[in-house]
């Protein structure tokens, strides 16, 4: 999904190109009138992110009370561990958590990138627009009012997220959905649902309130192989949809008139992207509880790393994965032996990032 999008012309022979004017596109393969092209910098950044995720993943597998070296981890992953206990800890206990962090990060990163693209607004992330809050409402209803099992809580979370999205979309509808209206309606609905969530917890019996508070912190503790299968399955279903939508999505930043004029079916693209984004964030939230700021921050971070304006779904996915994994490693180590919830760490990191963004980056732009 890395943008095969830009074009280039050869620089005039008189002026040698400056460093930032270097050929930004790499043609990987050309045959007849076909070619496969990549943005050089975006491709390199994505490869680096992928490598970082792999290395950090192995490091994360060494974390825990039972000491296992990185070498043993790799051996265990390949199925040749000498120590059966190490093999058990790596593949049955720690691997689901690490894969969970990566997959949830991928889902949140893609979801954030989709919503920022269709809303045309850097704040148009599912955290801000109320989808995550809606998922939480669904889960809290399941925990507190129904007393549901973990599976029931997950189902409640998905239903809550999807229902919230449907309500926001319907309220923002006026012969089509504009990005700005989607954000504003979403912020309003999100605020209302926050109040509902608080009320639910306050009125709950102590035990349920504790479970609810734990769930709301967002944690990778309880991730099982079955959760991973759900997440992976959803990503497999969503990926081809995103491949189909991607080129249309890149035109939305030009405004609806220009996108329509170019032959993009703006309404279909937006609806498809909302559906994919909601499904991803709802299922991620169902598995771990709300993990704040990743969906908001990942697209920003990757846009700065890539130095492009096209929506970078692959880059956001990889950035999200690295962010959640690193946050979870910090959550386990920061106050060890006390284990923090990953959502607490992402919220703290994300808060700092957002403040830095507001203080330095946006101040430069709007004098």
């Amino acid at each position, binding site marked *: 999904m890395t943008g095969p999008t830009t074009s*280039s012309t050869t620089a005039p022979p008189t002026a040698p190109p400056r460093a930032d004017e270097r050929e930004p596109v790499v043609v990987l393969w050309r045959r007849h009138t076909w070619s496969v092209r990549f943005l050089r910098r975006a491709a390199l950044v994505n490869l680096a992110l992928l490598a970082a995720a792999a290395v950090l993943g192995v490091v994360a597998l060494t974390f825990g009370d039972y000491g296992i070296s990185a070498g043993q981890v790799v051996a265990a992953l390949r199925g040749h561990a000498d120590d059966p206990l190490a093999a058990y800890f790596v593949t049955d206990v720690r691997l689901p958590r690490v894969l969970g962090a990566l997959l949830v990060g991928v889902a949140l990163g893609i979801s954030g990138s989709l919503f920022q693209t269709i809303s045309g607004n850097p704040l148009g992330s599912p955290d801000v627009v109320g989808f995550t809050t809606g998922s939480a409402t669904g889960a809290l209803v399941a925990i507190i009012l129904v007393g549901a099992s973990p599976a029931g809580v997950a189902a409640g979370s998905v239903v809550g997220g999807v229902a919230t999205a449907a309500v926001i979309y319907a309220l923002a509808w006026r012969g089509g959905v504009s990005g700005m209206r989607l954000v504003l309606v979403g912020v309003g609905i999100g605020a209302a649902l926050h109040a509902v969530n608080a009320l639910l917890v306050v009125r709950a019996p102590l035990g349920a309130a504790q479970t609810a508070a734990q769930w709301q912190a967002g944690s990778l503790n309880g991730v099982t192989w079955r959760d991973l299968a759900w997440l992976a399955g959803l990503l497999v279903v969503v990926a081809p949809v995103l491949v189909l939508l991607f080129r249309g999505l890149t*035109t939305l930043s030009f405004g*609806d*008139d220009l996108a329509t*004029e170019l032959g993009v079916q703006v309404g279909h693209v937006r609806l498809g992207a909302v559906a994919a984004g909601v499904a991803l964030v709802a299922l991620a939230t169902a598995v771990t509880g709300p993990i704040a700021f990743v969906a908001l921050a990942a697209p920003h971070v990757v846009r700065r790393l890539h130095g492009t304006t096209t929506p970078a779904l692959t880059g956001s996915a990889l950035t999200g994965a690295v962010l959640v994994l690193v946050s979870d490693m910090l959550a386990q180590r920061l106050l060890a032996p006390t284990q923090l919830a990953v959502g607490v760490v992402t919220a703290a990191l994300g808060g700092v990032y957002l403040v830095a963004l507001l203080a330095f980056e946006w101040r430069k732009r709007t004098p």
Partner: protein
Amino acid sequence: MTASPLQAVDLVVGYGETTVLDGVSVDVLAGELTVIVGPNACGKSTLLRALARVLPVQGGHVRLDGREIGEYAPKQAARRLALLPQQPAAPEGITVADLVARGRYPHQSLLRQWSVADQEAVDEALAAAGVAELARRPVEHLSGGQRQRVWIAMTLAQATPVLLLDEPTTYLDIAHQLEVLELASRLQREGRTVVAVLHDLHLAFRYATHLIVMHGGSVVAEGAPADVVTPELVERVFSVRCRVVPDPESGTPMVIPLRSA
């Protein structure tokens, strides 16, 4: 088949409760530079946007090459008809070449993302609009006139026989207005059908090969500027009393407003 590549027939268009166009019929003539003028809120931009199918039509028809425009697949229509909207917004940081390349969207598909034909069309469009040397520059660093030529290059990359320009000269100084209109005029002479909505009557009358005058949501006059423009028409449409004299440079009609007594 009809000689007109783009027609509006009894077009009714509005926003919500307000009807802006109430039964407008217009034939866009092939190979002409048609300029639409009229006072603010007369419906000229609405007409252009409805012709380009970015506004839903409440009644009547838009025909593209004789066929109902809605019967075309969106990309198919976009290969025959391009619209440059008013004041388009470029995503932050985008380069000229990247922006112009987006014009190739209707010629591409999932399995045909970037072909040699795409590259050639972009290079041609950059050259035609005189912005080839700016290709690597970020659009936001350009002057207003350069930026408008870059946008026109994007619609040129779309490689359509018909080009609609919605107020392409608004907010530009006189030198940049001339730049843009010279480009539009050259495109027409090279065989394209161009339609532009303009505000400046003097330049409109000078560059138009065909003029459409709109007032209150309908077309009140149509034809070659020299045949159409009279003091009475200008007073009726713009509520300005004036003399109409030949432009000493081009011989086209020139409106000289009278001083209010």
